[in-house]
């Protein structure tokens, strides 16, 4: 069964450093997302991406964050200069075309990357 994969599973970095979190969405999916879960808190939407551009971003997704689909398979989240409060689990998700006449799209989540900023 196709699945979303994420690398690395755990990333440790120093404050101020740049990190890139990588995701490989399901191959025929067209919509891509990043979510964040700070330890002990709920999962929060960061950004959605379609047709090589951001569809929507939350207020969390400030200028320190960027997303890219550098090739036909990868989808990356870059944090330019990490802060302590960026420590969290980051989930990538993807979905296929919207269900015809529906009001949702089912998103498939990767296993997450745990980012620790020291």
């Amino acid at each position, binding site marked *: 069964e196709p699945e979303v994969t994420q690398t690395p599973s755990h990333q440790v970095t120093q404050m101020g450093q740049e990190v890139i979190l990588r995701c490989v969405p399901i191959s025929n999916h067209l919509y891509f997302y990043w979510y964040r879960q700070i330890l002990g808190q709920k999962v929060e939407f960061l950004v959605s991406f*379609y047709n090589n551009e951001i*569809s929507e971003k939350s207020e969390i997704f400030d200028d320190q964050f960027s997303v890219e689909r550098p090739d036909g398979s990868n989808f990356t989240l870059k944090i330019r200069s990490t802060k302590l409060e960026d420590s969290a689990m980051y989930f990538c998700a993807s979905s296929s075309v919207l269900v015809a006449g529906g009001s949702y799209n*089912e998103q498939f989540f990767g296993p997450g990357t745990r980012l620790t900023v020291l």
Partner: protein
Amino acid sequence: AQSVTQLDSHVSVSEGTPVLLRCNYSSSYSPSLFWYVQHPNKGLQLLLKYISAATLVKGINGFEAEFKKSETSFHLTKPSAHMSDAAEYFCVVSVPTSGTYKYIFGTGTRLKVLA
């Protein structure tokens, strides 16, 4: 604005007894609702989804949820808890955004199953 509220942050049940995890939603239109489970140090796994039509939704591992519009609820149930059900459970509503939908998560309910 669309949102979900999970009424219990922690629930403890004995193995073999029923499970009830409560979720209420707020939506200005007919919502699409989901339950996800997260086992320790694992990703998010879809348990079940409500799109429309049938109000009783069956999911994996014996879980069910009933959509009650009059009560704006989407509670998750299971007749008999197993030790392996111990995990964090998230109620989710799908919200339209620019050209797609985004998920709004509840705060989660941690289920503990006692031997």
